[in-house]
């Protein structure tokens, strides 16, 4: 059993609850008694309490038992999960007909038929076909097949799969009380099979999972996944009323009746950078709807944080971000991944978070009476109030995922090595850092990150140097240790070393291959960004602000926060809270002194501050380069489509010319986010030019944004709120 060390537990509260529960359970007539309901307050989603006091559960390795007992018996064991209020599972055919007969669909079919002049039966056929394409057909036999196969695969790939059992118990409880939505983080294709595998292991009801249609390209795999509970949705169906209606009714029918927990990825797609992605709201809207319309008393949303010590798709993602086109997800492609099987991917931690009650989230925020005047089955665009509620909730939920992501020591090493890599570059020093220096710094960073509330898994009974070397050895594809010095594995490109006579590596290719390593490392560093992002924004704000005046610093903070709101998870409208949280953390850790008027850096605070600013520096630089590109290049006819290749070329040149040190700026993710930020701020507009999606650049504005990012211009008042 691993334990989350260094965590203060508030046990007293727990006990009191226990006492009360006793009486409630003694009700007659099997009166359903709720345990846990009080835990599902919105406060549990994300609290501004001292992060150090965060309580986290212990983990249990589920592979341990798999290594000692028969996989076959495991796959064939009795599986009898408890469902919501004891409903019996529902046949797919019954579910489909419920959807097709629903009032909502009925209404939309008639509407579409009237608008298009098509016969209603015709439209109904189409709806039925959409449903066929979409619907899951969960089969226990397939689940058992996967249980067997995955046991084998997981045991070869991973050292352990650690799950917080208390979280599973909470989930069990939640499933019986209210319909449940599972929201796992998404870092790998593995995620949803892994989720179902775990739930099967613990005899918890298997979820139905929203999956993108891209899987359907692989006929066989697609069908297998369907039979293990996946349902498929098209990536885009913008204005297609009928599609939307079938889809939302399908999800709601499953949810409302409690047939199965509904699982989907709030981030919409796998994050290639290990940063959480801006949440997508479509499905969240759908699953909250039954509560908002009073069709169920509550919906429990359970954020699940899946942390991989080493991501299977590590270099694949890096390549993708660099613009090496992503191989189409084909069955054969997956099988090529067999090579993957021979490697060691360390351990996985899966943390089932506190169930979040949608009812408590909505309390005092949404006036549910707004649904009183129109029949509830008539689809309507959500009101602004609902939209902003769902959006805020989505951010809170992503933060709840982030909070319980387990960080491995390697994440600290990757951060330190990256910073060192760039500093040495700049200073023209010998590459890498001494192993013991790295160890000392890692121990320092371990303590700092714990103070900031990181869920760090640093084995306390092992010596720091052992911890460091085991981290390095697992990631030997990314680091080299030679002569007691550790450095990123960038010197020899992947296509053979310079000694290879046939190698005709161009400088650009060389750069790209180095960038693969840098981006991979960056993805590990990114895992801890959520811990530091607010303090780091404050650190950078202090850096670029023209004075120590609190208001000025706040203005800069607000500017940066605004700039980076597509890059990091920053809840909309929470500027002041974020600022206060950042101040609180930095003051508490002795880095800053904040008075009524001023923000002052303490003597011993410089080290932390430097670390924090360097953490954000690649992003600051990256955004500036993108600005420069838009100002310097001929962008008259630039379209959105051409933007990425063009800016990439520009950046490559900058890197080669030594005008930019951060290869990670080559990440298309960063480039897209920067463009999105500029669009949000109105510096770039998309217009219908000669080509659709032509970008109209306001150079003056872009220029001034660049200068502000570089600290050359004071933050304009207009972009900042009052503190």
């Amino acid at each position, binding site marked *: 059993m691993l334990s989350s060390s260094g965590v203060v537990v508030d046990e007293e509260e727990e006990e009191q609850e226990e006492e*009360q529960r006793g*009486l*409630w359970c003694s*009700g007659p007539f099997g009166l359903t*008694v709720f345990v846990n309901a*009080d835990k599902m307050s919105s406060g549990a989603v994300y609290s501004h309490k001292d992060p150090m006091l965060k309580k986290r559960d212990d983990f249990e390795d589920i592979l341990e038992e798999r290594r000692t007992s028969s996989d076959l018996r495991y796959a064939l064991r009795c599986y009898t999960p408890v469902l919501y209020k004891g409903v019996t599972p529902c046949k797919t055919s019954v579910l489909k007909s419920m959807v097709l007969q629903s009032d909502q669909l009925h209404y939309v079919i008639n509407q579409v038929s009237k608008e298009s002049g098509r016969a209603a039966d015709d439209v109904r056929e189409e709806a039925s076909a959409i449903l066929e394409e979409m619907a899951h057909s969960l089969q226990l036999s397939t689940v058992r097949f996967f249980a067997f196969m995955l046991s084998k695969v997981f045991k070869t790939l991973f050292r352990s799969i650690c799950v917080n059992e208390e979280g599973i118990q909470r989930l069990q409880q939640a499933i019986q009380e209210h319909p449940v939505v599972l929201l796992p983080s998404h870092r790998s294709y593995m995620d949803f099979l892994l989720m179902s595998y775990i739930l099967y292991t613990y005899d918890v009801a298997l979820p139905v999972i929203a999956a993108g249609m891209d899987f359907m390209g692989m006929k066989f795999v697609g069908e297998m996944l369907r039979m293990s509970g996946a349902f498929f949705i098209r990536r885009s169906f913008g204005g297609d009323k009928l599609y939307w209606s079938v889809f939302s009714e399908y999800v709601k029918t499953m949810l409302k009746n409690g047939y199965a927990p509904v699982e989907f990825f709030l981030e919409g797609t796998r994050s290639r950078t290990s940063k959480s992605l801006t949440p997508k709201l479509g499905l969240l809207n759908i699953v909250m709807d039954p509560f908002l319309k*009073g069709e169920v*008393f509550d919906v429990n949303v359970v954020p699940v944080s899946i942390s991989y010590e080493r991501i299977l798709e590590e270099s694949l993602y890096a390549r993708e971000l660099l613009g090496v086109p992503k191989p189409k997800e084909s069955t054969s492609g997956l099988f090529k991944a067999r090579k993957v099987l021979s490697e060691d991917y360390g351990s996985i931690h899966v943390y089932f978070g506190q169930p979040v009650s949608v009812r408590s989230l909505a309390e005092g925020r949404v006036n*549910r*009476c707004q649904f009183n005047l129109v029949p509830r089955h008539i689809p309507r665009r959500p009101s602004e109030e609902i939209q902003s509620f769902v959006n805020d909730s989505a951010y809170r939920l992503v933060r709840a995922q982030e909070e319980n992501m387990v960080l491995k020591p390697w994440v600290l090493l990757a951060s330190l090595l990256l910073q060192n890599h760039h500093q040495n570059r700049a200073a023209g020093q010998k590459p890498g850092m001494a192993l013991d220096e790295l160890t000392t710094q890692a121990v320092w960073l371990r303590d700092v990150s714990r103070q900031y509330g990181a869920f760090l898994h640093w084995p306390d009974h092992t010596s720091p140097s052992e911890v460091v070397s085991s981290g390095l050895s697992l990631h030997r594809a990314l680091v080299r240790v030679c002569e007691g010095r550790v450095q990123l594995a960038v010197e020899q490109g992947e296509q053979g070393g310079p000694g290879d006579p046939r190698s005709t590596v161009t400088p650009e290719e060389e750069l790209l291959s180095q960038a693969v390593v840098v981006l991979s490392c960056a993805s590990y560093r990114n895992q801890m960004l959520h811990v530091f992002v607010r303090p780091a924004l404050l650190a950078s704000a202090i850096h670029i602000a023209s004075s120590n005046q609190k208001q000025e610093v706040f203005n800069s903070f607000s500017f940066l926060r605004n700039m980076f709101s597509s890059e990091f998870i920053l809840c909309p409208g929470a500027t002041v809270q974020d600022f206060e949280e950042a101040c609180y953390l930095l003051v508490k850790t002795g880095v800053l002194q904040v008075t009524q008027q001023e923000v002052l850096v303490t003597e011993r605070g410089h080290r932390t501050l430097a670390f924090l600013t360097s953490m954000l520096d690649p992003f600051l630089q990256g955004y500036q380069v993108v600005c420069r590109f838009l100002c310097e290049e001929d962008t008259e006819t630039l379209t959105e489509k051409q933007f990425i290749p063009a800016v990439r070329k520009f950046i490559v040149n900058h890197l080669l010319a030594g005008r930019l040190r951060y290869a990670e700026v080559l990440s298309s993710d960063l480039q897209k986010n920067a463009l999105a930020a500029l669009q949000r701020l109105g510096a770039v507009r998309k217009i219908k030019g000669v080509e659709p999606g032509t970008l109209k650049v306001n150079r003056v504005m872009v220029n001034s944004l660049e200068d502000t990012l570089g600290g050359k211009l004071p933050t304009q008042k207009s972009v900042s709120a009052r503190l």
Partner: protein
Amino acid sequence: MASNSSGGGSSDRQGIAQQRLRIIAGHLRGPVDGDSTILAAECKAQGSNTDVSSEGKTVPRRRQEIMKWNGWGYSDSRFLFNKKGQAEFTGKRYRLSGMIIPGLKDWFEGTFGANLQHKTPPTPLLTNTAVPPATLNEAFVEEVKSTGIPFSHDAEDRVFRAHGHCLHEIFALREGKIGRVPDMVVWPSCHNDVVKIVQLACKHNVCLMPYGGGTSVSSALECPPEETRSIVSLDTSQMNRILWIDEKNLTAHVEAGIVGQDLERLLNESGYCTGHEPDSMEFSSLGGWVATRASGMKKNIYGNIEDLVVHIKMVTPQGVIEKSCQGPRMSTGPDIHHFIMGSEGTLGVVTEVTMKIRPMPEYQKYGSVVFPNFEQGVACLREVAKQRCAPASIRLMDNEQFKFGHALKPQVSSIFTSFLDGLKKFYITKFKGFDPNHLCVATLLFEGNREKVLQHEKQVYDIAAKFGGLAAGEDNGQRGYMLTFVIAYLRDLGMDYYVIGESFETSVPWDRVLDICRNVKARIIRECKDKGVQFPPLSTCRVTQTYDAGACVYFYFAFNYRGLSDPVHVYEQVEHAAREEILANGGSLSHHHGVGKLRKEWMRDTISNVGMGMLKSVKDYVDPNNIFGNRNLL
């Protein structure tokens, strides 16, 4: 008996009248105490002497002679646990009177976690010292004296008229806590008396609060503590005559203070009825019904109060408001009756009402249907409403209420079986496959001529069968209706043992019925837990009325408050939350209890700013000095 023009032998008539008496006032047994009846003072101003009513009015001026001062109903009728620990109902008035109810103790202890050892008896006597002294407006008192209209500033009289029957009101009385009470009570005995009193009140700037039967459950009768003027309770109970019956048009002209049971009994003597039977009809008055927009259980045949009134006379500070004719429908701008109905005593005193009457039904039959679950039951009621074939009354109780109803079965045999065992045995043998923890029951009341009733009955049972409903006999039905008359007595029993509770209602579109029932019940349970209630509460509901476009839903909620320092406050918080939940689920603020002061805070959201403005401007015109200052509604 007055005019008897329609056909049919008089013995026939009498037979029907007697049967009728047995049925609607079936709970009444034995003669009403003759001494307690006070003869209505002759109203000198009353010119014509067409009073068709006979002797035997229920409500004396001194209510304390027959009613409890700190609980529901007649002093001689109450539930108690006898020495053997068995529940029994005292008195002679009701069917249940004098009977042992063996299942109640088990149910009571089981449901609430209550214990007969833990008692919370009320303060036995009203101590006059607890009552704040009266602030009298001497000039007003003098002038009232000179009119000869009876009045009193006796403490008991005043306390009796300072409250309705909300939980917090009764709870406070039981604790002997008395807040602001009226300073004086007047008993007008006719319309003209009221005109005089209102004139004097305007002249001397005295606050008037009309008082009918005192059954309000909306804090409507509570005196506003901030009121500094002398508060005079205008008790209408002595204006209780039927002034005439018009058999050609089937209407009766009645003084507004008459209580439901007297109105029905007196009309029955002439072979008629109004058919308006709110559950409180023993004590609530015609004026009260008009003032609160009341609803009777048999509205499917007879209509709600707004369907029943043909003409209303109301005395306001600006004078008397009434229509000039009794046409059955008029297009003369917004109906002024609708300013009066639901005005909750804020505009004036309703003194006389012309009401529709009907010949008494020839035949009545109770019935009941058991459904496998509540969902099926609601679906059946919806279908019945759709086919517009609802019986006089149709009510659907959820599982908890069904069990409650069963617990109230009086003793038939002496063999004691535990309540649950009996229940299970009964339903497993009788309704195979029905889960006793899910099934629910609809109670039915059919009325009309025998043939049609039987036909109607078949139609309804056929519909029920489509929804899995099985006929469950007349007894179960009748017991269901009986329950509504004794439920208020039961609350007093609960309060003797740490259990407090209340019911509240709403109306809601059909498609929302199931959702609102589920959510409100769950909300109550959740809130109780959050507020520190130590035992799971009773949280149950029933659908009591059906309409074309929706239904009326009642929630009952009670809990054991042991361990709570301020149970009433907790209760109020939970009720508040439940009301919010109702509104969030598309339910109305009230179907018939009214707004009073209890639900005022939601009025604006309910009727919009403009709506509020409209009502305010009416109030400002009719009563610019706020003589009718009970501060209800707005």
